[in-house]
């Protein structure tokens, strides 16, 4: 397969890797308590405070600084709500508290995407099949070409444009994520099959729209247009920020995509291994940690998605040390560099041609030829490409042992 040439692990090693990471997990689980409860409650109090302050200030939005302050506070509220609270609570990170208000099964967030859909598409699909082409729908959200291993088509010329649109309307992109519109367009399923999901999305979008674009503006009377503009700006700010941090998690150069075949018979250690290779961190500081919902520790999040996120920083020390010992890459960089790398990849993949070689960390090894060959004959769906053909050719070209 594509990655094992560069970072081979014997099955004993991957088993040992699994044991070491499991040990970290058990250690943190055993230590959960008041500190974690206090943390998440403090973040929630801050978020609700920002929200009340933001909405309040926007009532005075005829004074320009109030408008600006209101938008800032409301943006922060939405960012905290989605990133550090919603995403993490819905992972069940705080289920152990047995507090109904923090129950991952019922939590709902200030976002157009219904929590129930998020739990399915994110917690289950994305976190189980991370970076597996044709399985993990977060690879390009069904609308972008994010990997050399996705065959090029003429419409990928619009890759940067699609990415920009997705960033601007990100919450709606996430909202329809679980509807699998791309598969509907491809004729693989009908609208009717997704009627229930469609209705849930409609309900949630309506609820959010009524709140942000109807009720709060109307309550402000003559300032209605300013409040509406303020709420739209806050939603936009959250959209752009969420897109940025999320895309930095799996798509900077150096992160690896996998095929279904490669991951078919995975052990727990190999699952950890895939999470490590498929994720990338952001170096920054505590503020970046909170605002990104600790996706700045995407690697740790993918190893331990249901441990409270504020623990990732301390876990990261051990994970880095383990990576060093096993000779595995630990992809980390400042936000500017990682996002620049993502933007570069989106632009590069708009065009056909050979993937860039060399560089830091692992690239897609000598499969370029295979890739081109397969792409030429590829089926419309990625899943089928990812199946047998690519790997057979790969095995020849690279002469590599496929052990994942």
């Amino acid at each position, binding site marked *: 397969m594509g990655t094992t040439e560069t970072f081979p692990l014997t099955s004993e090693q991957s088993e040992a890797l699994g044991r070491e990471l499991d040990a970290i997990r058990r250690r943190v689980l055993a230590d*959960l308590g008041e500190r974690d409860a206090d943390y998440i409650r403090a973040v929630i109090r801050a978020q609700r405070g920002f929200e009340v302050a933001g909405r309040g200030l926007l009532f005075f939005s005829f004074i320009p600084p109030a408008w600006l302050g209101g938008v800032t506070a409301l943006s922060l509220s939405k960012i905290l709500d989605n990133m550090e609270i919603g995403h993490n609570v819905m992972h069940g990170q705080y289920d152990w*508290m*047995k*507090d109904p*208000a923090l129950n991952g099964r019922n939590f709902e967030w200030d976002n157009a995407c219904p929590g129930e859909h998020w739990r399915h598409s994110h917690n289950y699909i994305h976190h189980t099949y991370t970076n597996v082409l044709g399985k993990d729908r977060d690879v390009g959200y069904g609308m972008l070409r994010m990997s050399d291993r996705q065959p090029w088509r003429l419409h990928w010329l619009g890759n940067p444009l699609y990415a920009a649109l997705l960033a601007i309307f990100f919450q709606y992109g996430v909202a329809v994520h679980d509807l699998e519109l791309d598969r509907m367009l491809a004729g693989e399923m009908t609208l009717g099959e997704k009627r229930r999901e469609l209705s849930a999305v409609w309900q*949630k979008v309506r609820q959010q729209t009524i709140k942000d674009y109807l009720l709060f503006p109307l*309550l402000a009377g003559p300032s209605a247009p300013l409040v509406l503009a303020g709420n739209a700006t806050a939603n936009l700010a959250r959209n752009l920020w969420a897109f940025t941090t999320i895309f930095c998690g799996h798509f900077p150069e150096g992160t690896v995509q996998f095929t279904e075949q490669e991951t078919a018979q995975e052990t727990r250690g190999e699952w950890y291994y895939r999470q490590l290779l498929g994720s990338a961190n952001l170096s920054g500081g505590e503020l970046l940690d909170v605002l990104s919902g600790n996706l700045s520790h995407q690697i740790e999040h993918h190893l331990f998605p249901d441990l409270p996120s504020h623990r990732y920083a301390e876990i990261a020390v051990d994970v880095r040390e383990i990576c060093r010992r096993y000779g595995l890459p630990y992809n980390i960089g400042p936000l500017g560099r990682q996002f620049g790398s993502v933007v570069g990849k989106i632009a590069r993949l708009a065009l056909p041609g050979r993937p860039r070689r060399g560089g830091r960390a692992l690239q897609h090894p000598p499969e370029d030829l295979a890739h081109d060959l397969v792409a030429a004959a590829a089926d419309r769906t990625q899943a089928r490409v990812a199946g047998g053909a690519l790997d057979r050719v790969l095995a020849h070209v690279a002469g590599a042992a496929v052990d994942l």
Partner: protein
Amino acid sequence: LNVLRSRLLGALAAPHGVEGYFGLVRPMWSPRDRRAQLIAVRRLSADSVTMTLRPTQHWSGFRAGQFIRLTVEIAGVCETRCYSLACAEQTEGEIEITVRAHMAGRVSRYLYRHARAGMVFGLSDAEGGFVLPRVRPERLLLISSGSGITPVMSMLRTLCAEGHPGAVTFLHYARAPEAVAYRAQLAAIAARHRRVRIVLVYTRQASAGQLAGHISRAHLRSVEPAHRHAHTYVCGSPGLIDWVRAAWAEDGIEQRLYVESFLPPVLAGCASGAEGSVGFTRSGARVRSDGRSLLDQAEQAGLRPRFGCRMGICRTCTCSKTAGSVHNVLSGETSSTDEEDIQICVSVPVGDVELAL
């Protein structure tokens, strides 16, 4: 309160709800969640704590003999336990519970040590069918032991407060006088109410002229010779309950016997329970069934399902069974294989079972 419940406010506060904002500032103003604030703490016996609580306005009240589920946060974890109310139905706006500190009881020990006025707990509506009939029986016999005194205490206080004209006999078993939290209150009731007879029996401390030891026919003859004509309410240790059940069955008067048991029933090792496997669909875990309760097996598998009483009365642990059949050790029933909500603390699997956990 109605303002807080309005649809407009609800739409403005979506998706967290008004609760998500007010609840953080003033938990007792909660428009939806029921809570209780601790207003007085007394330690009436060496190993118990008696707490007077004020429920939120929309708490729906109770009938004497019922219990509530109290949710206490300890080290970040919301623990829920069942406690019988001990106060009279007539106490407006306040309720009382007495919690005995058990050696292994995380919540009871915490409350015993740390309860102080001002604390806020989660509260459920009152539940349970161990209640006096609306039309009060002419003769009543209330039997309890240990911490089982609380629901019958509530019954006794309610009857006294409403001026019940009938005869009430209150028979309580305890290790020693100082173990009876309500000794002073009982003495006061006995002094004021002519038709109430209160008998305290100490199992480890006999004194002249008093009954001693565990319940027996002799005790019954001495305390309430007309027990055949009384409606009897019993709450206490398994030994006490078993004896009363057997005696009442012997006399053919079980239909006038009402029992509340606060100790877990022993799970009879059902042979079929140790076969097959239990799948937990949400977490993806699967274990080979060992015949114990599904709650035990879920915890064994590393899950942390919500639970409360662990004896099949509070329904905190209720979860959806998506496939397979279970045996309810409390009811003795074996379920169909349909999807349904089950109480996992008292259900053992019969063959393969899937739970939405």
